């Protein structure tokens, strides 16, 4: 099943003269957890607001469930649950009453409130005033109100932002659960890479309003599948000179070690020999697959150059 749930075609968006989104072509397959990754200010939230028609796109730029957003907005929004940035919660009402406000707007049976409270594990605190909620509880309440209509697509903007580690784990479990047990497509934005790495099946990387990569998560890791070598030696700067003479690029150098990308493991012995020949003491040679973080930094850095 690879029907597209979200499709954008050449989506541009301006704030006055500032081009916030530049030719965004997203394609979110059904049933995926789609990680939307980018540094702060890259255009993630803007994209999400456009997808929900809080910011108006131009006709034909955005399709959800294969239908044009602008013409079918009410129907489409009935199938989408959204959690955008900071939680939207009436602080003077209890969690249950907050859901009741939204329930009245979307017209689902009263029992649904209890069901979503159970899904987000907020039953015990449902009747507490929302102003006494922790940030994690606020995020879960926001998720609960997004779930009221039992939507096919969830759009979550930085759902783990500001949560403590246990809150993050809980949110992650919830998202996986919703995707796997309830079959929901999830569009998830984040600037936390490890978060996306653990959840997403598909990713898009955005920076300065442009999509830099889009596809499967594994594809991203293979695309830039270089190995990183960490060398610990006694005289670091001298070692760096030697390596530079051998045409290696050093990505990081500090008082104790040198980091450099190498195309192949066979390079390790070459490097070792070169260093030993110059009478340097090599304490450690450590290789590691590049993680998403360095791939991400590489991709977003490329644009600056």
């Amino acid at each position: 099943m690879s029907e597209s749930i979200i499709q954008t075609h050449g989506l541009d968006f301006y704030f006055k003269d500032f081009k916030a989104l530049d030719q965004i072509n997203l394609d979110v397959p059904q049933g995926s957890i789609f990680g939307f990754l980018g540094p702060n200010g890259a255009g993630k939230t803007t994209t999400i607001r456009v997808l929900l028609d809080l910011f108006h796109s131009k006709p034909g730029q955005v399709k959800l469930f294969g239908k044009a957003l602008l013409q079918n907005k009410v129907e489409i929004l009935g199938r989408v649950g959204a959690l955008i940035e900071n939680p939207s919660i009436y602080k003077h009402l209890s969690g249950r009453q907050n859901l009741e406000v939204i329930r009245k707007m979307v017209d689902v049976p009263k029992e649904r409130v209890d069901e979503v409270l159970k899904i987000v594990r907020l039953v015990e605190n449902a009747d507490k005033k929302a102003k006494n909620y922790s940030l994690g509880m606020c995020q879960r309440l926001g998720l609960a109100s997004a779930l009221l209509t039992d939507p096919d697509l969830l759009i979550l903007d930085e759902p783990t932002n500001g949560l403590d580690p246990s809150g993050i784990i809980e949110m992650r479990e919830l998202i996986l659960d919703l995707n796997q047990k309830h079959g929901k497509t999830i569009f998830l934005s984040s600037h936390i890479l490890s978060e996306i790495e653990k959840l997403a099946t598909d990713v898009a990387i955005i920076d300065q309003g442009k999509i830099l990569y889009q596809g499967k998560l594994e594809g991203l890791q293979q695309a830039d599948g270089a190995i990183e070598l960490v060398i610990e030696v006694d005289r670091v700067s001298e070692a760096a000179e030697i390596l530079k003479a051998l045409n290696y690029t050093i990505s990081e150098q500090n008082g104790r070690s040198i980091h450099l990308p190498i195309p192949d493991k066979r390079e390790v012995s070459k490097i070792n020999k070169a260093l030993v020949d110059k009478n340097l003491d090599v304490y450690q040679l450590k290789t590691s697959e590049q993680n998403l973080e360095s791939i991400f930094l590489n991709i977003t850095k490329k644009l600056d150059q």
Partner: protein
Amino acid sequence: MNAAIALKRGISAELYKYKRTFILWFLIIGPAFIPVINFIIFMSRGTEVMAEGGNPWQKLLGFSIDPGNFLFPFFVMIVALFVNSIEHNSNTWKLIYTQPLSRVTVYASKVKIFVLMVFMSLMLFGIFSVLAGEIVGMLQPELGFDQAFDKSLFFSLPFKVFLCTMGYASIQFWMSQRWRNLILPLGIGIGGFISFMIVSQGWKYAIYHPYGYQILGLGNLNDPEFQVWANMEYVYRSLGLALLIYLLAGIDKVRKRII
């Protein structure tokens, strides 16, 4: 989906969210303010007030409507602030505008609730005023509250105030919807009201000043020729202005980016 059903949903959600808010109390206590003071005046110094004789109900009507008409704009400004700041403060504009209802529906629900609040509080004001008179009449029969009087005036006059208020109320509503800042709409509103007070001293265009329709439209209660439904041009001006402003504010909300 039927537009009427959608609007009903919007309104019932809108009503529900004021549960346990200060504004609900404000809508009840506000209209009780002047009747309670009048009650105290008649109870403590009733004989002095009625020294010239006449119908105490007429006196009470004047004591109620005139100060009420003066204070009411401030009440309206605060209500307009409240119905919008509840969304500003909880970051819920984006929540209510991502529900499966059209933007027009969500906007119209809020306008309706606001208008309803203004209307209800004026009717409450009428009820409280009559109640004050009746209770004083029971406790101090010598003041003459048993005389015949057309008490419908306690409701028709506030209703006229309501109609004349719609104009500037719509301006207050638009400003409060647009700006997160509380001081700005309040400042402009108070400025508008005071500027009317100044220009009404003699400027010939003062009759078009939207913050003065309810004062000019009501006329002088003590005039023997006084008629409730005279000076209707102010009612029409107010309603026309309200229609225009709500339309513009609606277009504004439908087109605007919601943060």
